[in-house]
């Protein structure tokens, strides 16, 4: 489960951590849009490099590395699937898709590494989404490690009763995992009911307007970054539509 390391918040004192969560969210959106409009290796590579720079600024390289290492299996699958499913520009296209996946993973990792769950909830609420949904989202993040631990406990208990999870053919293995899923699902449903009761017992939903302990405030640097990020995005999109981007961006790697 170490690939989840890059999605867990760590308290650190960097300029990135001090940014408003909404600014960071804009950065994530910008990167997502930019990485989706390009299908070429060079622009995606530039985007990927710049995400590494952001993570370096946030002093979170170690956590990020663990996540990327854990993603290696997925990356290989993405490359292979793209490679066999298309007929032209195989290497370029497959490599670009791998880079796109890396960029998206890194930018989301950047966001979750530097934004506290509290800030996240506030940012979601500030963007007009109701508290029920923001709570659901932050709680589901909070319970990922708990879920991993439950899973381990259940697997230990089943193995102690002689179940060999890795034994047998493909079908048998899938069947083995259903033994794991039943207690896991039942247990988590029971747990969520208990959490719901605990929330209500502590006054959740008593008033529509809640007071907050933290307050989000956009600073000057936040406005500057947001405006620059949006301008760059619009510019790149326009240049791409009118075909005015420099041609070296579209050079094929396999031709060099």
């Amino acid at each position, binding site marked *: 489960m170490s690939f989840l390391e890059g999605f867990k918040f760590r308290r650190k004192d960097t300029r990135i951590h001090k940014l408003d969560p909404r600014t960071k969210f804009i950065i994530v959106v910008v990167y997502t849009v930019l990485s989706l409009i390009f299908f070429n290796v060079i622009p995606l590579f530039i985007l990927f490099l710049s995400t590494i720079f952001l993570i370096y600024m946030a002093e979170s390289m170690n956590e990020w590395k663990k996540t990327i290492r854990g993603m290696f299996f997925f990356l290989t699958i993405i490359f292979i699937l793209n490679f066999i499913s298309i007929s032209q520009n195989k290497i370029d296209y497959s490599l670009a898709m791998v880079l796109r996946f890396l960029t998206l993973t890194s930018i989301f990792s950047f966001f979750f590494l530097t934004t506290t769950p509290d800030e996240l909830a506030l940012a979601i609420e500030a963007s007009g989404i109701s508290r029920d949904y923001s709570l659901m989202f932050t709680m589901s993040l909070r319970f990922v490690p708990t879920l991993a631990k439950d899973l381990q406990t259940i697997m*230990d*208990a089943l*193995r*102690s*009763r002689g179940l060999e999870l890795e034994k047998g053919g493909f079908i048998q293995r899938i069947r083995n995992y259903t033994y794991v899923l039943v*207690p896991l699902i039942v247990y988590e449903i029971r747990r969520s009911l208990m959490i719901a009761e605990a929330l209500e017992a502590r006054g959740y939903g008593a008033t529509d307007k809640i007071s907050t302990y933290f307050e989000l405030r956009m600073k000057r640097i936040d406005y500057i970054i947001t405006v620059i990020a949006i301008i760059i995005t619009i510019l790149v999109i326009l240049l791409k539509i009118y075909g005015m981007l420099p041609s070296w961006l579209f050079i094929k790697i396999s031709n060099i």
Partner: protein
Amino acid sequence: MKNNEVVIETRNLYYAYEDEKYVLKNINLRINKGEIIAILGENGAGKTTLVKHFNGLLKPTKGEVFVLGKNVKDMSVAELSKHVGIVFQNPDHQLFSETVEKEIEFAMVNFGFEKHYIEERIEWALKLMGLEKYRNRSPYTLSIGERKRLTLATVLSYDPDILILDEPTAGQDFLQKEKIAELMNLLKHRKKTIIIVTHDIEFIVNRVERVILLVGGKIIYDGDKRGALTNYKLMKEARLLPPQVSQISWILYNLGVKLPKDILYTEELLRELLRIYKS
């Protein structure tokens, strides 16, 4: 000790979860056949981590573990589980079958037992744990006490020589605890080795012979229960409350009543108090 056949042995056992620091440090243990042992310690002392080595769920980072004379290094969990049954704490983490009968059958099917034998064992286990009338019910419809008994039945059914109970009394009422104690008695007569992991001191006072105290992954005491439970310093180090009878004796002792300092049972305390009263 009456019988000196060693069933579990650890030699300089160290264990660490993924590149973190050691949670078990230099554990050296010899557990004999037929012994009833309690492993005590506060949360996070490494109790469960230790017993998970006895059926191969965890393999030592350093050192060796032998079960029934064989090194566990090359043995699978399934192989070891036939001889070492672990009953985990939370029934909800373990039950998944459609009926109580199927739940009990599961382990025996995995071990490849014969059909008529499986049927026989299911009947035995159902009767033993008082679950006969629930045989066709879904395990999830049972009460927490019944579910706990069912998890015991699922392991007892295949008759392992060594039984490990992880917090058997957690969340159980008095009656359930008595039932678990009865069960332990029965298993004792059948010469089974029983290891219970717990911090329920009152429960073990009358039920185990040997106590192992774990603190921060190290064994600080291994021996006769009286030596541990009546030693104020050791119990404090392990962050455990001594049995209430011992606590009362200490209070009385400090008030000037001339009592021995290692009183463990109610009867002992009464006898001593009567002796003082008469003189």
